[in-house]
């Protein structure tokens, strides 16, 4: 997070705000609600309280403006620059301007007013832009249906105003850091020659012509997938990726989610109802066999016959000696299985049934 240069802040904790005018794109009630919810995000984690007033000069004046509206930053028409806000202070200080040349909505269509207002009020309270892509204070617009302060946002605003006097503070998500030695994964899959790692609501991606680890929201590619996936695997001959959570799974081809999903794992794969979720999965392109790891056991499924092979489940420790009894994630590359459990990664040779190397989970990120 970044505190605005000079660390401007409000000297009082009770602030007023006024909505000076309304966009014709939404009902007054929807605008009021979006702005009120945006203020609530920040008051939930600080001692700040916000009261709406209907006339006169409020601390934070909110308005919809177009083009040059006689402050130092004219808007430039649709797209690009959506809104701006001024740091705490008298007069224009704290004020928020939304570009009326944008379409404002209260749903997933561009641009969601609640999402943008939550960001701009961060500026009104003394925050600048964060480099954390999971933070509300990140400069570019991204909205996948939920608006919540990340831990980065909470740390920033509490560096200025301290925590909320109410002990019940909402749990704020933390953006994974590729080189955090304690990094663990929810799921991992190959995808068209690349490897994609999943953690909470983020993917981390390595491709060999671009050394930096790409980190972004899973919903950038697959908007309808749930957060915190549990398993994923690539069915290369069908150019499909399958994502698992609970007893359901989704399928995608590239960025296109396939229709008719989610399906349940019982009907599709023949799992017994005692299986509530899949920990990890990997498919072998040459044999068409998919391995599903559940607790300390694993199943083998034949993708061509579309049936579970006989004699399963078997114990993981028996057929994959050395990798322990539980798997968080697994993928196959260049003939080797890479098993992940916690911060450990096991490079496993399926031919000799031996662990070849013990690695850190984030060894692929070349930290």
């Amino acid at each position, binding site marked *: 997070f970044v505190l605005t240069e000079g660390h401007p802040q409000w000297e009082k904790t009770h602030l007023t705000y006024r909505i000076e005018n309304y966009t014709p794109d939404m009902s007054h009630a929807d605008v009021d609600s979006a702005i009120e919810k945006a203020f609530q995000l920040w008051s939930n984690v600080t001692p700040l309280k916000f009261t709406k007033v209907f006339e006169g000069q409020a601390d934070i004046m909110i308005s919809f403006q177009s083009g040059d509206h006689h402050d130092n930053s004219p808007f430039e028409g649709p797209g690009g620059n*959506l809104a701006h806000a001024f740091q705490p202070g008298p007069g224009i200080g704290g004020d928020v301007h939304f570009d009326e040349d944008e379409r404002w909505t209260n749903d997933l269509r561009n641009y969601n007013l609640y999402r943008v207002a939550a960001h701009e009020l961060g500026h009104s309270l003394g925050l600048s832009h964060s480099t954390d892509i999971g933070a509300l204070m990140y*400069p*570019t*617009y991204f909205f996948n249906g939920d608006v919540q302060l990340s831990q980065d946002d909470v740390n920033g605003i509490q560096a200025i105003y301290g925590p909320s006097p109410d002990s019940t503070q909402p749990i704020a998500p933390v953006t994974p850091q590729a080189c955090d030695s304690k990094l663990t994964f929810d799921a991992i899959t190959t995808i068209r020659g690349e490897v994609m790692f999943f953690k909470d609501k983020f993917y981390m991606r390595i491709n060999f012509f671009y*050394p930096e680890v790409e980190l972004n929201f899973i919903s950038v590619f697959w908007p309808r997938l749930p957060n915190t996936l549990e398993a994923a695997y690539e069915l290369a001959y069908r150019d499909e990726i399958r994502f698992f959570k609970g007893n359901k799974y989704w399928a995608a081809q590239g960025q296109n989610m396939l229709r008719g999903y989610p399906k349940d794992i019982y009907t599709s794969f023949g799992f017994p109802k005692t299986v509530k979720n899949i920990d990890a999965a990997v498919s072998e392109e040459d044999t068409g066999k998919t391995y599903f790891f559940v607790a300390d056991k694993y199943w083998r499924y034949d993708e061509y016959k579309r049936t579970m092979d006989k004699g399963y489940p078997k114990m993981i420790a028996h057929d994959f000696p050395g990798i322990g009894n539980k798997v968080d994630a697994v993928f196959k590359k260049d003939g080797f299985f890479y098993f992940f459990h916690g911060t450990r990664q096991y490079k496993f040779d399926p031919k000799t049934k031996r662990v070849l190397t013990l690695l850190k989970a984030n060894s692929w990120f070349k930290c």
Partner: protein
Amino acid sequence: FPAPSKTQDQDVEMVQKYLENYYTLKNDGNQIERKRKNSPVVEKLKQMQEFFGLKITGKPDAETLNVMKQPRCGVPDVAQ
């Protein structure tokens, strides 16, 4: 797809405007200046690439142009 080798003119304009708006690049209108290797544009581009965790090349590559085209907040990324 690989980005076109030569950045299109409108991209040059967009880069200039983006850096003026969000990275306090001074607009001195000096075309020659913009072409020089260590011109302020290159420095500001590197600053923007570092902010967004992009490869720091000082060149308006495809990744960098893609970020610049994304809708965003009008407040600068660096202190005025």
